């Protein structure tokens, strides 16, 4: 049962850091690829900031992944 149905708080988890490290990219380099500052990449990686659909797609494409492979909902 999903967190929304049970009333449990949900968070958007991601594998940005893992994939970025695999590709040998720094936060600044990834940020430059998607046209944001390093701060935004850092907050998304840390789960502090939930990106918009546009940014999520851009990040996934920059890391050669699909959005579903990059982001998922954790209860």
């Amino acid at each position, binding site marked *: 049962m999903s967190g929304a149905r049970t009333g449990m708080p949900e968070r958007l988890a991601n594998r940005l850091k893992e994939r970025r490290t695999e590709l040998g990219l720094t936060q*600044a380099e990834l*940020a*430059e690829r998607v*046209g*944001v*500052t*390093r*701060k*935004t990449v*850092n*907050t*998304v*990686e*840390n*789960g*502090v*900031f939930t*990106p*918009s659909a546009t*940014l999520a797609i851009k990040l996934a494409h920059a890391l050669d992944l699909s959005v579903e492979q990059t982001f998922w909902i954790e209860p």
Partner: protein
Amino acid sequence: MSSYLIGLLVGIGAGLLILAVTKFRTRNRSMSVAEQAEFLSKRRARMLPALAVIFLAQQASYFSTPATTAPRPVDTVKISAWLVLSIVLLAALATKGFWGHSREVRNLIDDENTRANRNRAMQSGFLFAMGAGVCVYITTMFIPVTTREAVHIMMSAGIATALIQWGYLERRAYRDA
């Protein structure tokens, strides 16, 4: 020339000197757009709490002035300085800021996370301004408060809260997990 005018001119001169130094420091480094945005964004995160402190200190100076029947020239200067600073800070809160820089740099600085942080800060500022309004309203039942004082308190509460909140969110965004 009156001492107040000299003080005002010295203040404006100091402000222009600080602007020139910061501009020179930024220009002296050959940086890409991304590096410039990073540098300026970090500087803003450091400056916001400092600006809030300066702004709040100015309030102490305003409210410590004894109430006089006839306004003195120094009071006019104080109020004008507060108004100018308030307008500049409001403009910085409501726009992308960094007006002297290229559009590319300004657009990059004002990215998704910054806009979200700014909107959250503006929301807090609005709530605190309204809260201050409620407090002033209750206060007027017991002691007289002039319109100018009420507006001053509400604007200051809103702007200072927004600055502090934005500064906190920007600094947190740079923290590593």
